[in-house]
Structure formats: C-alpha cells, structure tokens
C-alpha cells in the first residue's frame, strides 16, 4: 500500500479523451496489458510510477474487479469499447476517437488514446489530494447530471406507462381495436425509425471510413502499377490450393496471428488484392471461397481475453483458453481452407 502513488495519464499527440487519474489500491492493483506481443511499455511505465503490478492479459488474466487500468492497442473497432463498457479506465496507445459499435461507452473520464510513455506523470501527494478533490467534485457533478437525466427518463417512462394504462381495458369494441392498431403502428414506426437511425450511424461511423481507405488504396494500386508487382507475388500463392493452405498456415501462426488480426485490416487488404486479381482474371474464380478462409485464419486471436471476459469467463479459463485457441488455429486454419476448397466445387 505504501508504494501506491497516483499517476495522471494524458492523451497523446492527436489523441482523444483523458486525462485519467489512476491510484492503485489493494483491490485494484493490476495494470493489464491487452496488446498482444508482450507487455506494452506504456503499461509498464504506469505500473512502475504508480507502484501497481503489470500483467499481460493474454498470459495472466485478471478479474475485472481487480483491474486498475487496461492498456490496449486498438485502431477503433471492438476492443476499445469493451473495457470502457465495464467502466474500467482504458488507455489506448493508438490514436483514435470514439468509434465502433461500443463508441457510446468511451467517455473522456474513462478513456484516453494516443498515449505514449511520455504522457504519464507522477503526481506529488499535495497536488494529488487537490486533484482528487477536484475529481470527486467533477464526479459529483457528473452524478448529479446523471441523476437528472435518470429522473427525466423515469418521468418520461411514467408518462408512457400512464398512456398505456389509459389505453388498455377502458375502450372496448371498435374503438378499442382501432386504438390497438394505432398503438401497434406507433410502436412499429418507432422501432423502424430507431433501426434506421442505428443503421445510418454505423454506416457513417464504420463502413464509409473503411470504404474511403480501401477505395484510395485500390486507386493507387491500380493506377501506379504497384498492382502488377503485388500480383506477381500474390497470384502464384493464391492461384492454387497448396499456396492457399500455406497462406492459411502463415496467418494462423500463434506468434503472428494476434498481430495480424486487429480490426481485420490486414485480412481486408489481402482480400481486396485477391479480389482485384480475380476481377482482372489473373486468379481463378473458384479460388474465391477458399481464399476467404485463407486470408482470415487469424480472426479474433487478438481479442481472446476480451471476448472471454465478455462471456464472463474466470481468469483461469482465460489463461488456458488463450493458448488453446492460438494452438488450435494452427490445425483448424489450414483445415478450414481445405473444407472451403471442397465446398467450392458446388459453386
């Protein structure tokens, strides 16, 4: 306890969110590094300054109640929102602003991105106390705001409840039927409208940005002739089942797969290149299905501790599960390509 000190983690250059103030306690004494490829220097630095313990979440998972802060390297799809959703302070070493399906959980009080080792500061005790008070005050304000919001929401619900109560049982006969139909239509409209809003939100936040990136990439590749160079490398590997199995083996190697997986970006780029060559007639169409599995044997290997945490797995399960899955991929990755190859005969 004596060695536990408060540190302030600010957002990095071009980063977002923060600053986060972190004080380890006896219960919350672990800095978890969820970065793949060992403990990240940022996690190590936070632990060193604050006196907390740092663990590699892939090897030694920690229960979420004991986690002081999670250090992640996520470009902006799933993982970056997982820990904020559990209200665990999250430090992202990559530069990003809230995005992805869990964007709404990433708030400034719990999330900082673009963080480098230089953005971590030790607070001397007096300043820490003042800062702590300030944070408490801030929290109180936030809580108040939340309360207000809740009351408003509760009131709104109450109003709705009333209207429902009024609607049922009182009116009978034709009027009752009309009432029910109107109510049903109202609910239906609401659901459809909200569904539409969610859809446009995902399209703007997740799909179009990726399209912009891929379209620019394809444009450059096709126009400059880099495409031909890449094709020379890619076509011999992708044009036959043997090459695809090799690709499947490469993408499933336990030390490589967690590095290839984040955001499915590398798989998407190789997929786009293969697709381009299929379109140009350099790669046979029958290769499409096995290729989809060969480029993606690494899927989700970067996300194992997080995915298992979402499934409420115990730390022991995670510590066994992560290597089990990584090892299993070496077998199932190439095997998936073979299955897809035989399935492609039906196309």
């Amino acid at each position, binding site marked *: 306890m004596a060695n536990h000190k408060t540190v302030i983690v600010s957002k990095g250059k071009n980063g977002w969110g923060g600053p986060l103030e972190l004080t380890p306690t006896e219960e919350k004494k672990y800095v978890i590094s969820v970065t793949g490829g060992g403990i990240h220097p940022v996690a190590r630095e936070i632990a060193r300054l604050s006196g907390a313990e740092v663990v590699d979440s892939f090897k030694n998972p920690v229960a979420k109640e004991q986690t002081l802060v999670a250090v992640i390297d996520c470009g902006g799809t799933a993982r970056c929102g997982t820990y904020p959703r559990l209200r665990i302070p999250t430090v992202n070493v990559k530069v990003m602003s809230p995005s992805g399906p869990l964007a709404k959980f990433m708030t400034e009080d719990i999330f900082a991105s673009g963080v480098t080792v230089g953005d971590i500061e030790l607070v001397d005790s007096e300043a820490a106390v003042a800062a702590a008070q300030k944070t408490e005050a801030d929290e109180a304000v936030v809580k108040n705001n939340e309360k207000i919001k809740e009351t408003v929401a509760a009131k709104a619900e109450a109003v709705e409840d009333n209207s429902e109560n009024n609607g049922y049982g009182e009116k009978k006969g034709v009027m009752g039927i009309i009432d029910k139909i109107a109510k049903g239509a109202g609910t239906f409209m609401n659901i459809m409208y909200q569904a539409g809003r969610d859809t446009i939100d995902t399209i703007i936040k997740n799909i179009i940005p990726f399209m912009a990136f891929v*379209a620019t990439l394809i444009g450059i590749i096709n126009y400059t002739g880099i495409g031909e160079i890449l094709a020379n490398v890619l076509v011999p590997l992708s044009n036959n089942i043997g090459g695809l199995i090799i690709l499947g083996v490469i993408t499933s190697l336990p030390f490589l797969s967690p590095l290839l997986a984040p*955001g499915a970006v590398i798989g998407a780029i190789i997929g786009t290149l293969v697709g381009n060559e299929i379109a140009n007639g350099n790669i046979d169409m029958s290769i499409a299905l096995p290729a989809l599995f060969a480029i993606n044997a690494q899927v989700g290997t970067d996300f194992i501790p997080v*995915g298992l945490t979402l*499934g409420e797995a*115990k730390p022991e399960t995670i510590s066994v599960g992560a290597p089990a899955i990584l090892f*299993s991929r070496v077998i199932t990755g190439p095997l998936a390509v073979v299955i897809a190859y035989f*399935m492609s005969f039906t196309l």
Partner: protein
Amino acid sequence: MDFMIAIADGFIGMFQAGAEVFMGFMTGIIPLLVTLITAVNALTKMIGEEKINRFLQKITKYALLRYTVVPLIAVFFFTNPMCYTVGRFMPEKYKPAFYDSAVSFVHPITGLFPHANSAELFIWLGVATGYATAGGSQAQLGLMFLLTGLLVILMRGLVTERISAYMFKKQGYERILNEK
C-alpha cells in the same frame, strides 16, 4: 511545362481512379446495406434480447448446436462484439471453444447479413466485389461462405474444445472440467 502537366495528370489520375472505386461502393453497396441492416436491426428489436437469450440457454448443452446454431444466432442478433456475451450460458470448460467458434463466424455471416459485423465488411467485400466483376453471383458466393463458415466453426469448436480440455487437465484445473 509539359513534364509538369504530366506529373499533375498522374497525381490527380491516381485519385480519380480511387474516386471511381469509391463511387462504385457508394452507389452499389451502401444502398443495399442501408435497407438490409435497417430490416435486421428492426427484427432484433421486435424479437427482443431476452427471448433470444432464453432460447440460446436451452440449446447450449448440445455440442452440435453449441458450435453451429448458437454462434449463428448470437452473431446474427447481438453482432460483433456483443455476441461473445452468450458464452456466459455455458460451463467454463466450453467457453474458449465457444469464443473460437463465434469469432470465426463474424466474417462468414457478412456475405448475407452484413449488419452482423459492419465494421469489418471488407474481408468479405474485397473478395466478393472482385468475384462479381469477374461475372460470378455474389449472393451465391455469400451463401456458400455462410454454409462453409458453419462447417468450419463446428470443426474449430470441437478441436478447440479437445485442446482446451487437455490443457485444463495439464494445468491442474480439473475443478473446471468437472463443472457442469
């Protein structure tokens, strides 16, 4: 001067090529995604998460369903990454295998149901747009991607289940293996 113009042409041409590809995405894929994703979003809201959860809870005990139907429903309705929360309905010993199975399905499903993992569509779209340009049927490839995906996740789930059982034993976690 001519040389400069040639450079300028080349520079802007590169991005014009990109713009054409982008416009193709915007007019070809986006409208389809908008309507499809809206419909499925609405369906999920109408059925309700509770009902889906209750159903999943019942069928997780059968290995054949645990690594096919359960991930399919989980990924379809809860989408990536919330689909992994379904792991809480099963004993600890199956959780790694279930995660492996579910996460391996978040791309095969996008061929027909892109709402399930809209942030990572390009694993599928990259290959599929090329396939369509070459004259293939994207819907047919999407269907085969989904069916093959089901076979693959069943195989993957069963293999990972065996490997993790072996490792639980080796690490001395028999307690977890005996948990029902």
